[in-house]
């Protein structure tokens, strides 16, 4: 497959990468753009560890191709907030200690961020449904639900 120039914006910064158009976005983000947030969990869109926000919606970067990401505005966990200025969802996850090994954390935080922008006042059932396709093997679910509630309250 011929290499193409793919232009995309990541965390507010414009980039052009030279890749084959079917390259999964995940590898562009991690390798070309050195993002640590989105993670390889399955490569099949099943677990959510690779979640980013693309054009305002959550997207599983392992099944988004470079050509699908052309011209997209992408936010990764790396760009969501900083220690000095954390995003309310990041702050809530730390306050609730909502992680054990932390590998699924990226997906949980990004999916939550996208979800709360759609549904700022969720019930607990709404939260569970929204995150039902994000897998956590360590079993941090109880703390994660608390964190999402906390973030929802903080956002006001």
């Amino acid at each position, binding site marked *: 497959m011929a290499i193409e120039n793919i232009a995309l914006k990541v965390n507010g910064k414009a980039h052009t990468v030279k890749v084959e158009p079917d390259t999964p976005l995940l590898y562009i983000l991690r390798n070309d753009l050195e993002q640590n947030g989105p993670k390889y969990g399955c490569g099949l869109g099943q677990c959510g560890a690779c979640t980013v926000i693309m054009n305002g919606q959550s997207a599983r970067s392992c099944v988004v191709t470079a050509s699908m990401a052309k011209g997209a505005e992408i936010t990764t966990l790396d760009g969501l907030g900083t220690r000095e200025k954390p995003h309310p969802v990041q702050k809530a996850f730390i306050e609730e200690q909502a992680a054990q090994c932390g590998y699924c954390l990226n997906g949980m935080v990004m999916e939550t961020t996208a979800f709360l922008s759609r549904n700022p006042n969720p019930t607990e059932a709404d939260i569970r449904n929204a995150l*039902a396709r994000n897998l956590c093997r360590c079993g941090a679910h109880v703390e994660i639900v608390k964190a999402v509630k906390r973030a929802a309250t903080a956002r006001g």
Partner: protein
Amino acid sequence: MHGSNMIARRQVLKGAGVLMLSFAAPAFGQEAKKGTWPSGFANSEVDSYLTIGADNHITAFTGRVEIGTGVQTAMTQIMAEELDVDFEQITMVMGDTDRALRQGRTSASDSIQVWSHFQRRAAAEARRFMVNRAAEKFGVPASELKVEKGIVFSKSNPSKKASYAELIGSGKFELPVPKEIPMKKPSEFRLIGKPVPRVDIPPKVFAEPVFVHDIRRPNMVHARVIRPPVPGIERQMMSTLVSVDESSVKDIPGLIKVFVKGDFVAVVTEREENAICAARTLKVVWKEWSDLPDHTQIESVIRQHPGKARTVRNDGDIAAGMAKAKTKEEATYLWPYHLHGSIGPSCAVAEIVDGNLTIWSATRDPGALRTEAANLTGIPLEQVRILWREGSGAYGRNCTDDATLDAALLTQDIGRPVRVQIMREEEHGWEPKGAAHLIDISGGIDDKGKIVAYDVTTKFMGGAEGTSLAPYLIRQKKLEFAARRMGDRNGSPLYVGLENIRVNCVDVDPAIRTSLLRGVASLSNSFAHECFVDELAVAAGVDPAEFRLRHLDDPRAVALVKAMLEKANWDYRPARKQQTGNILKGRGISYARYTHGDYPGHGAAYTAWVAEVEVEASTGAVRVTRVVVAQDCGLMVNPTGCEHQIHGNVIQAVSRTLREEVTFDKSGVTSSDWANYPIATFLDVPKIDLVLIDRPEEPPLGVGESAIVPSAGAIANAIYDATGLRLRRVPFTPSRVKLALAEQGPRNG
């Protein structure tokens, strides 16, 4: 800054003072029994050391590693407590084989139970050393001195003070850690027993590069290994390669090499996506093997698998006991193979610079793996360094060590840093599984409800672990298993007041690649005992909770169970209630105490469960609606950490008990992703109520896996209470439950 080993290393200044603390560390595999000192000081390796910078910041080096349970934070609390410094004044660096020592493997939930003991003494000794130096310096008795925030000062004249940094300068001291040393009493605790937030969470929330998966080296290349087509069947993977057609990948961009050595086949490329593509495209011909017995008939597979029996317990006379039993029961319990199921498949990066091999690895045994890497590559041990970085939760052992040696092998050949990422299907297939287990129990009660016979045969399909794959695949080593007799863990019922008890343990050489998985044989043995005892309770006409209390004499166990029953508002009744309708509700109880070491082992944390379930008769679906877990783990170093670990154990338990079973075809494991091996999601999480027994004056007992041990028994017993069904084969999937309900026939109203 905490949580990042890289940052910690920058803080270790040249010219910092160093305290090297030596104590008789138990040799790997040898457990430290409570109250006894391990005999035979096997070596004089330093066990822990502290460097103290001019800014009075302490860096502590330990061979233990963080596997996602909060051990790093808890151990920092312990050291800061005894050193009389603030939590923030210590950075703990884990698992660097250059700087830290072999403290054995991080496992068995014994980091706190066994190692914290030593860390506390080491820290107390370090403090004592500093205070004595200050006493000399000030010309006052040590009893006159106090320490706060790492500053020693005179109680009567606080302006007479010196920091640890000032007291030690850049001196280097070796201190033997004594067997006995005064330590802080619970009433004095500032940090131990407090819910200190975990140091490793913020870096992960802010996407700092703390995972091994985040390692990026200049000039790094990407590799994928193509394994023989017998996933999870180590015994059949050698001498299977027939041919590799390199021309099949000639058009892959950035292809560097197709590496073939023995049965080890890998592709190496500049870009990661090309490595994945090359691995899928490369034409490899292997000898076929398709002789695996049919694991859908797992009971007969296990029975027919050769094993060696040993009797670990034989009290009284089983035959005589059975003869006088009024009611006899007999049951066979089956536990399937389970995945560890790390969300992040394993990864490692290796590079060689000037003949020195460095591997970034998430291994839980950096010391042992370093030796393996040296043997594999022929590079002298002193030129091999493992830099530990966090991996995805492993709950035992996954493919991390495999990836580590894969990377070492390849970097030696390629001459550039190599990153090996195991793919999802490969991790599912090749990760050493949690072992299957077959337990037969027969027993009886007399007319007074006394248990007069209890006969157990327990056959655990694991316990012996091979090492990492690479040395076998390159045909450097012959496959050998260090046999470990794991099947006897909790093989004996924990109850007292039983007559005539026999426990036979059958040890096997495993057919399927296995390793320890959270709960190990304790989990599956306890499942069997707790189900069987429940049956005996029903036969005796006694409420199952009451029955258990009659057979427990350990005061901590009794207190635990009673506290739990109160919290659960346990409905005492000697028989289940008959129910009609589509949703059947039930409650079940289970008690267990996790044990370490060879039979009879020594006890760790005490745990009990009450599970409440709803069974939907039309579909067979079981929902665990509520779990009450009581736990007594002695001193809780970090109560929030304990709570979260118990939550995690509960959720994993619900997942494993209701959903999980590794599947096979004739060539090996067929479980390959989350669609064909589903695990619990947010929709499956029960309400979890905890009863944490606080015993700060007792030694800490660790909490990483004890809460999972009673899980399956409680759920099975709750399903019985709801439906009248005795389910003895995990997982309790809807189709199995539905079939069992159909076989049961029409329910009496």
